[in-house]
């Protein structure tokens, strides 16, 4: 999906009122030129970023295609800045004859320290009323994000960004009490959760869920939180008691009491894994069944080993979404509600060493 920049407006030393008036005028002018171009009205997104790195964020958001927010407000922070500068861009999707052209609005406000106390009054006039708002603060700045929380219904985080696991999980727990949290670390595990659910879905396999004795999760060395969320998900869905794991070399190990037995848990870094997220998982049952899923070309490679020695291997087809795809999915998820994340997060919190 490619975008064509249509109209641009900018002003130095401006005010939110003047930016909002400019947006209205640009939209009216664009509609007058072509009535088949109409503004998308799905989602507001507020991104609080370091101005120095705002280009990188623009590139990341530029790659999300159709998941671009209807109105994106970028608050580009530069510590010693005194003046409020604004750039407004209205872009339309390229379209065929007779097709509807959707307009996406981007407002970039350059702000400084003096504006931090007034973030809500700066941002509030610039989000579309009645649309849900997603807040993203990819460069930290938790104080600024907290200040903007009253405007947001959903918050986008990536729990893998914080090198301290506890802080990442604490932060997500705290935010989940204020708004709906979309965690990219959680979304990276969606295919794994889907496949895990599918492997145990046939009725004759479902009883094995109560007989799981061992789970090993292998993950990118910087993605321990992804592994914690995954076993937190299993614990919360399968009624295991979540207890703190212990460090064991590079790995984390522990036991989770289940209804009939203890489940041995192991989180193991996989140094060969190039991309963030999970690298593989292995599940064993008391009946001697062992299932292994590993990331591979074209999908997840599955191997099933039975107690009688029989072994089957196959591939669960699926294309990698890439980091751009994950971010786009994160924006889309702001409109949905996954009731299983918070219980998984709480269980992961309880498993922190």
């Amino acid at each position, binding site marked *: 999906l490619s975008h064509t920049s249509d109209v641009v407006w900018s002003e130095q030393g401006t005010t939110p009122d003047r930016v909002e008036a400019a947006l209205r005028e640009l939209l009216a002018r664009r509609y007058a030129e072509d009535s088949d171009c109409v503004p998308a009205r799905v989602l507001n997104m507020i991104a609080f970023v370091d101005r120095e790195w705002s280009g990188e964020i623009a590139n990341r958001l530029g790659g999300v295609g159709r998941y671009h927010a209807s109105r994106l407000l970028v608050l580009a922070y530069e510590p010693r800045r005194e003046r409020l500068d604004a750039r407004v861009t209205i872009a339309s999707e390229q379209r065929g004859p007779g097709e509807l052209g959707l307009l996406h609005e981007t407002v970039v406000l350059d702000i400084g320290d003096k504006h931090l106390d007034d973030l809500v009054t700066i941002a509030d006039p610039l989000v579309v009323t009645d649309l849900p708002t997603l807040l993203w603060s990819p460069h930290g700045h938790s104080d600024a994000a907290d200040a903007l929380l009253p405007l947001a219904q959903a918050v986008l985080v990536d729990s893998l960004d914080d090198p301290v696991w506890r802080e990442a999980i604490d932060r997500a727990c705290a935010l989940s009490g204020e708004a709906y949290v979309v965690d990219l670390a959680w979304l990276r595990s969606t295919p794994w959760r889907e496949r895990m659910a599918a492997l*145990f879905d046939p009725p004759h396999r479902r009883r094995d869920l109560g007989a799981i004795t061992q789970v090993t999760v292998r993950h990118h060395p910087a993605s321990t939180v992804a592994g914690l969320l995954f076993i937190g998900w299993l614990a919360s869905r399968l009624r295991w008691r979540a207890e703190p794991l212990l460090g064991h070399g590079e790995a984390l190990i522990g036991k989770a009491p289940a209804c009939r037995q203890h489940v041995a848990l192991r989180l193991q870094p996989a140094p060969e894994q190039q991309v963030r997220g999970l690298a593989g998982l292995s599940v064993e049952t008391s009946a001697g069944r062992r299932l292994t899923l590993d990331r591979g070309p*074209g999908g997840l490679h599955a191997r099933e080993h039975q107690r009688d020695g029989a072994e089957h291997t196959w591939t669960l087809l699926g294309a990698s979404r890439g980091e751009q795809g994950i971010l786009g999915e994160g924006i889309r998820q702001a409109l949905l509600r996954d009731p299983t994340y918070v*219980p998984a997060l709480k269980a992961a919190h309880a498993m922190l060493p």
Partner: protein
Amino acid sequence: MTAVATGHPEDAAGAAGSPNPLTAGLERLPVAPTALVIFGATGDLARRKLLPALYNLAHEGALPDRFDLVGVARREKAHADYRAESEQAIRQFSRRAPDPDVLAGLLERVRYVPGRFDAESVYGHLSKVLDSFDEQAGERLNRAFYLSTAPDFFGTIVGHLGASGLSRRAEAQVRVIIEKPFGTTLEEARALNRRVLSVFDEAQVFRIDHYLGKETVQNLLAFRFANGMFEPLWNRNYIDSVQITAAEDIGIGTRAGYYNAAGALRDLIQNHMLQLLCNVAMEPPVNFAAEEVRNEKVKVLEAIAAPTSEQVDTIAVRAQYSRGHSGGEDVPGYTEEEGVPADSATETFAALRLEVDNWRWAGVPFYIRTGKRLARKVTEIAVTLKPVPHLAFSQDGSLGVRPNQLVLTVQPNEGVSLQLGAKIPGTRMVIRPVNMEFLYGTAFMSQSPEAYERLITDAMLGDATLFTRDDEVEGQWRICDPIVKRWAAEGGPLPSYEAGSQGPEEAEGLLREGDHWRAI
């Protein structure tokens, strides 16, 4: 650090009959391991729709964990040749560029079984291939047979599937997916139903009407039953008439063989347009389970009286397009199209006036029309409300006051438009109609899946909500059959309309006094 008990009282992990606690919160439900067999695997539908749909499901990780595909067609060829043809079809028709690894992984699972559909040996061969999949998997896969052949073969294939023991399998589900058209007359549809149901249970049968797989058609139900605003008006007390239009600006292209035998009534009205009518007219189902929804649709069809032969002329109009202009170019008339006999009496336009004779709709005409080579491509449902009882604006512009009209556009730009009366700015109270428009494209980010992606998934899941039940098909044919017979008996010549126009003048004759066809 304290431990956290993570109990969910509603989930009982470990019991075979209990819900799978791992599926909560997932957008996609797991599909059981399945082997899919496509009869007519080298045909146009398989190449353009089914294979690309399967690829897109694989790309999204939406195919079952274990999935195998068998193509069955008449021509002799090796597995490798069929794989190469499938790859070419996917590359040409997929809605996204294929990922090489996913495509290779999918094609690895493709097998080909050559032979005539009436040859017993084909089914023996097929059975061995399917058994080999089970053996490799170490479990019995579900089986789905997709009949994407000429309709003449539906009964034959079903019969052979039954005779060769392929229609049932212990510890696995067996389903049959049947393409349209399901019969070309009421008798044929009934005979085919009898044949199919002598081999399969109705719960195993999935009759395709790909319109039902379109996101836009499903949105009709959401529009009606998720909004309290319109339902109180949705009856004979407030609604004056309903108009359903499916117009195409193109001709018959390369489909002369099929189209000339079918015609507009069989091609679109008997199936898709009557489905749209059912969605507009049905009562709210208790829930959206397959049987509940289909029960309500059947009640609508039962409330529409089949015309007698004498009534056909008063409720139905047919016509054929003649030479004209479309898209700024000269275009030929129907009988001048390649492959169409010069004396063809096939209708390229059909319009009906139907009444749903029940408590909710008695006296409200439902106008339906479809045609090729009309002025524009549009599919829409226009609901016209009764006029207000008293025109307070009669002195100053009552000419501009019109009954409210609600238009649900199915394609090309899906949306809802409500025509309202509004005051023209100025010192006098002068009214003119204005449109309040909602376009689905402005309010959602996701791309709608292709209808066949949804339908194949639903069939593998065993969810029949978007498929047509036996009594539904027969209900549709019961209404259309007298018209088909009457028109066949009459033969030609037919009334004509110029290509690129609004359709034949004769269609005006169906309208009640004061009613008008909407401009296409």
